[in-house]
């Protein structure tokens, strides 16, 4: 098993509600290592790259939105002026760019064995209302897709955590330079891995 890196972004709702420390603490407590961190405004240029600028991504997000609207009996065309999934995906991406720039964000790179799976477990379901208690999203938020859609805004879900090992590598390289990452041994490390 090899070590993986994951990018965590504590989004503006987490920053402005003053829960950065409480969230970071959870990743430290489980034994993951923070090998880099920064607090700054995310630039549009980087956010655009962060959420894949591909037809497939737009389609996936657009279709998810359309499905949710249909379930609620809402007409997506009224809000988005289109029912084309890719076009809707692009609108949602615009919302995400605005959301991530509501305040500076707290970014951390965590490292550990099977790190991606662990950070996703700790972060919880990306839809806060579905996230279990004990997870970051389950404990600190309760937003729903319905409410976000009704208010024409993205889902506010506190934290971003890399989805796959490949995303982890890509996102860490996007937001951090090699000089901003550090190698060191945690005090408890020798009791965790022999």
């Amino acid at each position: 098993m090899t070590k993986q890196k994951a990018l965590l972004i504590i989004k503006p709702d987490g920053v402005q509600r003053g829960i950065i420390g409480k969230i970071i603490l959870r990743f430290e407590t489980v034994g993951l290592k923070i090998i880099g961190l920064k607090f700054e405004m995310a630039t549009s240029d980087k956010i655009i790259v962060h959420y894949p600028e591909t037809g497939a991504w737009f389609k996936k997000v657009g279709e998810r939105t359309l499905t949710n609207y249909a379930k609620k009996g809402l007409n997506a065309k009224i809000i988005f002026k289109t029912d084309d999934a890719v076009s809707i995906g692009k609108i949602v991406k615009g919302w995400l760019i605005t959301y991530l720039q509501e305040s500076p964000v707290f970014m951390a790179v965590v490292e550990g064995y099977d790190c991606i799976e662990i950070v996703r477990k700790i972060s919880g379901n990306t839809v806060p209302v579905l996230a279990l208690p004990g997870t970051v999203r389950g404990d600190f938020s309760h937003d729903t897709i319905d409410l976000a859609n009704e208010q024409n805004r993205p889902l506010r879900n506190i934290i971003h955590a890399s989805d796959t090992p490949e995303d982890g590598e890509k996102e860490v390289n996007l937001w951090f330079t090699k000089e901003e990452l550090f190698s060191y041994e945690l005090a408890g490390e020798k009791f965790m891995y022999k």
Partner: protein
Amino acid sequence: MNERTLIIIKPDAVKRGLIGKVIETYENVGLKLMAAKMFKPSADVIKNHYPGTPEWIKEMGEKTLASFKQSGDDIKKTFKTEDPDKLGQFVYERLIKYWMEGPIVVMVWEGPNAIMVARKLRGHTIPALADAGTLLAQYSFDSSPLSASLDRVVKTFIHASGNTDEAKREIKYWFGNHQKFKNYEREVDSLYLK
């Protein structure tokens, strides 16, 4: 009244996974995070964080003398001298060594009386003498006789600026002349700052 202060989490606290705890403490009191970065400074960068003047070195030596007097330990037995200049130089060198044990986290926090509030929550720089409830008291038992017997300085694990001049100088030193800190609204702002 609104002040900025520089807080540094030193290597031992990073290795123990206390980054979240420290951030949580300052967030909870209502201070606003303005900047943060993980960093591994060179010996020179650490050296120049301190004033380093002969007066300052002497003062450091006198502090060590006072702390030995307080604990009733024989300073001559440990250091073979009771000259404050020599003691100060001894401490200065080992201080730099301590800071180089691993990466540190440098932060700027803002709020009314931020300097005093941050120092109060940090506590006395000798953990064994820190008031209960302060960060140094909660997370360390270190003392001067202990550290001297192990040929190192007391691990104070959090640096907090001492006064407005120091804060200004240190913020400029660690974040540069032209660093602009982006203001944003915290949840407590509308309750206490309006």
